């Protein structure tokens, strides 16, 4: 693919952790200091101060697993919701376009915390959804709206000529979308989706209010019985930091691989 047919359009959405790029020396160094610093600090606390900290590290691992499950489940579902709603936002059908736009507007206007309560408790009166699934659905519903805007912007960033060329080759609109536009758009939307993933990982801590035993809930349970608030939340913060930094690095590597293919 030549350079000018696919202009690299940066899309600034979300509040994910800064993803370090190789050429951004300052941020790259900061990433290394934070990531390895956090790991060293964790090891120091666990083995240097085992009386206070070892018990916390033993208490929270199943919470980390739940945090992962919620995050990964929610991001996959949010991508599906987002793609559907994003295409809907570009649709020329007035009804589909209206429905997709309404979804985006309503969801973006309600705080995630309120949505979580709503889907879990308010809808719980009518439909029976197991706890972890309602957490995943609520998170995906919210993030799907943001994801829709990313997909819409990503698709729109592909020059019109691409669609015109595909149509003139005899492709149908949906065929052109699937085979020409979307593959290019995916490359554009990958960085903002990576950002959303990291934001979602952090926001997943909100599901602890639903009595879902995620990392934060496990920490709160530990602290509320031992009263070691400082020690507990230090560990919880460090674990979240290590996870987000790890994933931001992973995403930046993925991006580099994709760019090499250009």
């Amino acid at each position, binding site marked *: 693919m030549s350079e000018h047919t696919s202009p690299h359009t940066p899309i600034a959405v979300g509040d994910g952790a800064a993803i370090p790029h190789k050429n951004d020396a300052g941020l790259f160094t900061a990433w290394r200091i934070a990531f390895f610093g956090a790991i060293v600090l964790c090891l120091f606390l666990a083995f240097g101060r085992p009386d206070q900290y070892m018990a916390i590290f033993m208490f929270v691992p199943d919470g980390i697993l739940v945090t992962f499950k919620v995050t990964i489940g929610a991001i996959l579902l949010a991508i599906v919701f987002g793609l559907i709603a994003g295409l809907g936002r570009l649709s020329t059908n007035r009804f589909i376009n209206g429905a997709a736009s309404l979804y985006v507007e309503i969801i973006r206007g309600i705080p995630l915390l309120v949505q979580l309560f709503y889907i879990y*408790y308010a809808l*719980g*009166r009518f439909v*029976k959804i*197991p*706890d972890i699934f309602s957490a995943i659905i609520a998170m995906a519903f919210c993030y799907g709206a943001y994801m829709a805007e990313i997909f819409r912007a990503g698709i729109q960033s592909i020059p019109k000529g691409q669609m015109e060329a595909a149509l003139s080759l005899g492709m149908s609109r949906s065929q052109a979308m699937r085979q020409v536009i979307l593959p290019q758009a995916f490359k554009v939307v990958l960085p903002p989706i990576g950002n959303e993933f990291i934001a979602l990982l952090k926001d997943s801590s909100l599901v602890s*209010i639903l*009595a879902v*035993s995620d990392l934060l*809930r496990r920490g*709160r*349970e530990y*602290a*509320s*019985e*031992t*009263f070691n*608030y400082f020690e507990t939340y230090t560990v919880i913060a460090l674990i979240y930091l290590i996870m987000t930094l790890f994933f931001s690095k992973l995403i930046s590597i993925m991006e580099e691989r994709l760019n090499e293919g250009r």
Partner: protein
Amino acid sequence: MKAFRTLTSLVVVFAAMTLTAFAAPKSIKVATDATWPPMEMVDANKQIVGYDIDFLNAVAKEAGVTVEFKNTAWDGIFAGLDSGQYDAIISSVTITDERKAKYDFTDAYTSIGQILVVPKTDKTSKTIADLKGKKIGSQIGTTGAMEVKKVAGVESKTYDEIGLAFEDMAAGRISGVVCDEPVAAHFALQKKEYKEKFKIVGKAFTKEGYGIVVKKGNKELVDLLNKGIKSVKAKKLDAKIHTKWVK
């Protein structure tokens, strides 16, 4: 002479005012998690009311202090005491050895026990152990949560507020709720949405005493409150408060 008299009377009035200011009853700030009816809750007028509130007001009156209540989430209520945001906690706090190691308690002012609430559709379960393989809810960091965790094979689910646990049981996500007897009675026997759905099973299976919590080493306040508690009990004021709130 007249001027002198006016001056003296002014001085006397001023002195009297200062004296009353000093003699005015000391005010203490007390935290409570008002999500634990009928012990402490927020009424329709957004006022914090309940057994503990009336009881502490009576104690304070006997001890000659005034109380300012502060509604605080249970999860972290002890941390707020550590950081000095309030002087004491009255929030149905059971006196336990673990808590006594970190905080000071007054004498126990009432005794209660933990009890199990299950849906009416459950005809067989009588104890926590009967619910092996199922989920039981309780409020985070309470003695109820500790009791659930003690039973192997039961999945413990902790909630920020006990009301959310009952709501989750109404939605069918959990099979039982463990909490203090009076709270269980309030939700399972009095609340009209739940009366039809839930029942209390068995007898209370722990013996616990509620105490007022203060920062470790605050002997002055513990003594003052204990004096008030003794006086309230001697006058049998607590029995009156009990009939008012716990039916």
